[in-house]
């Protein structure tokens, strides 16, 4: 585990240096092209300021902003005990120091993501659509995947490298646009527009167009790599490849896209929220194809004789399915010798739960987190009163009994969960 985090850090450092190099080059060229020859350094300074501001915002306010943008509401244990329990189980399995906050997004498109700069500030979010779809084992697989992103420190890295990519794209975009629309005036001011300057202009423009593409490629490749690793770590936590595989299949079959999940959190999602699942997924995708991930997990499950750690067995399956020579997992982590305990006890209560029960559970979680009042009527019906309701009393729809809205007993009962 530590081996993975450390190896990730080393590779991340290299990627960050490459991205920083791109950013400096872009800043220099922007200065040369926009301000004038010899002003490249000031361009670098501007690029650095843009980058620092974006980074600070992402570091301190990123979580708040993204959760707000995706319309997520925080839930507590009473709102959805099962989800809460599953996340806590995964926290124990992953040995994280503290449990992440849990958010629900009222959105039929199935997805889940995690966010937060370090494990102490982490949060996991899941859409109501996904919550409705999954049984306990599958939910455990998905949450294990999200917790794996937290444990492997993927979130901070992907946010930071995403911010660099953002700065590169932003600066390149501004430069190219102002050269096209306002560049003529500026160039005529300099008297000696010799051949050298035209060459600089052409090369600069070419780089301005290429750099953002290169930045995106680096970013997406890093993201895909970390998805495989998060899958492998999820299986390491749950010891049950089948749960995550089934969940991914269910998500893959869904045709709904999620408009509310922002493209910046895409790398932290369990599947790519921005692409149709069956479209061609290539170099510009944050996630490997779902079908391939499922095949790898199934491959793991199929072989009862697979030995070694779950990471090793994931790695074997990965090589077999993708035909890749390079490993999906750092070699230092694979050097660890076999784990001992058999598959963890998973499943149970959720197994025979119907999809109607699950839908009710999810709806309750959302309504309770939005401060709906739950009033239990003696006839067995349960009244759900939105917080905006100001009526002094309310009638049961089934037996017509009147309930006082300020009723102490009713509120006590709703708090006790007798609904």
């Amino acid at each position, binding site marked *: 585990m530590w081996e993975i985090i450390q190896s990730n850090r080393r590779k991340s450092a290299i990627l960050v240096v490459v991205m920083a190099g791109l950013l400096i080059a872009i800043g220099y060229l922007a200065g040369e092209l926009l301000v004038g020859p010899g002003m490249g350094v000031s361009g670098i300074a501007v690029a650095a300021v843009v980058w620092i501001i974006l980074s600070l915002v992402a570091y301190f306010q990123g979580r708040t902003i993204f959760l707000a943008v995706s319309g997520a509401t925080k839930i507590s244990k009473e709102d959805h*005990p099962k989800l809460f329990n599953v996340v806590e*189980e995964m926290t124990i399995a992953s*040995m994280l120091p503290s449990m992440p906050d849990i958010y629900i997004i009222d959105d039929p498109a199935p997805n889940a993501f995690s966010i937060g700069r370090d494990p102490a500030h982490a949060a996991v979010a899941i859409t109501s659509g996904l919550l409705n779809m999954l049984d306990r084992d599958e939910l455990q697989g998905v949450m294990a995947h999200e917790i794996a992103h937290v444990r492997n420190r993927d979130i901070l890295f992907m946010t930071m490298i995403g911010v660099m990519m953002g700065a590169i794209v932003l600066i390149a975009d501004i430069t190219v646009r102002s050269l096209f629309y306002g560049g003529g005036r500026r160039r005529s001011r300099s008297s000696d527009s010799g051949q050298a300057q035209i060459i600089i202009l052409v090369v600069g423009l070419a780089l301005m167009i290429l750099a953002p593409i290169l930045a995106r490629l680096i970013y997406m490749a890093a993201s895909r790599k970390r998805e495989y690793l998060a899958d492998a770590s999820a299986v390491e936590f749950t010891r049950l490849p089948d749960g995550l595989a089934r969940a991914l299949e269910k998500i893959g079959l869904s045709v709904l896209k999620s408009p509310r999940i922002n493209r910046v959190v895409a790398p932290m999602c369990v599947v790519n929220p921005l692409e149709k699942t069956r479209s061609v997924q290539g170099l510009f995708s944050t996630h490997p194809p779902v079908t391939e991930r499922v095949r790898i997990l199934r491959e793991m499950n199929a072989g009862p004789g697979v030995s070694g750690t779950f990471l090793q067995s994931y790695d074997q399956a990965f090589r077999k399915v993708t035909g890749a020579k390079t490993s999906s997992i750092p070699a230092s982590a694979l050097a660890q010798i076999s784990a001992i*305990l058999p598959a963890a006890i998973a499943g149970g209560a959720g197994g025979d739960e119907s999809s109607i029960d699950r839908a009710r559970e999810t709806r309750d979680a959302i309504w309770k987190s939005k401060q709906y009042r739950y009033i239990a009527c003696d006839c067995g019906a349960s009244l759900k009163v939105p917080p905006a309701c100001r009526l002094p009393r309310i009638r049961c729809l089934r037996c017509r009994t009147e309930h006082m809205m300020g009723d102490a007993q009713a509120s006590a009962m709703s708090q006790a969960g007798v609904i």
Partner: protein
Amino acid sequence: MPFLILIAVLVVIVLWVFGLYNGLVAARNMVRNAWSQIDVQLKRRHDLIPNLIETVKGYVKHERETLEAVVQARSAAMNAQGAAESGKAEGMLTNTLKSLFALAESYPDLKANQNFLALQEELTSTENRISFARQAYNDSTMRYNNKIEMVPTNIIAGMFNFKASEFFEIETPEERAVPKVSF
């Protein structure tokens, strides 16, 4: 000049040894932390049982033995001393709980009770937590023991008397064979 280089090399070596030593201490603390997590979850299970008994009692009046078996297993588990005895007692408790939940299958009223359903979820989760905590303990033990046995940390471990930690092993062969519990 050669003297300075010698000092620099010595400093690097000392820092490196510090690093190795700290790594060992961190690994040992992980093991201890993981072990205490198991205890936390076992305690959680003990605390849930009185509530469960209270809820079930009203519905299954003619099944006193099953309920008493659970209560006895609980107190045995709470009073058990030492890892081996405690492991056995907790295994007993798991089994009695299993039979209690199997019993509940034949009482539709009980199965529809909200309180019972909530407790069922809590106990399922607790069972999961216990096994995940044991899994985490074994993983961290493996990492720690690897450090103790592998070069070069084994030299430091020998010098400062780091002892290998023991794996948690499941006592009964039938539990080994059936890793999946369904309530």
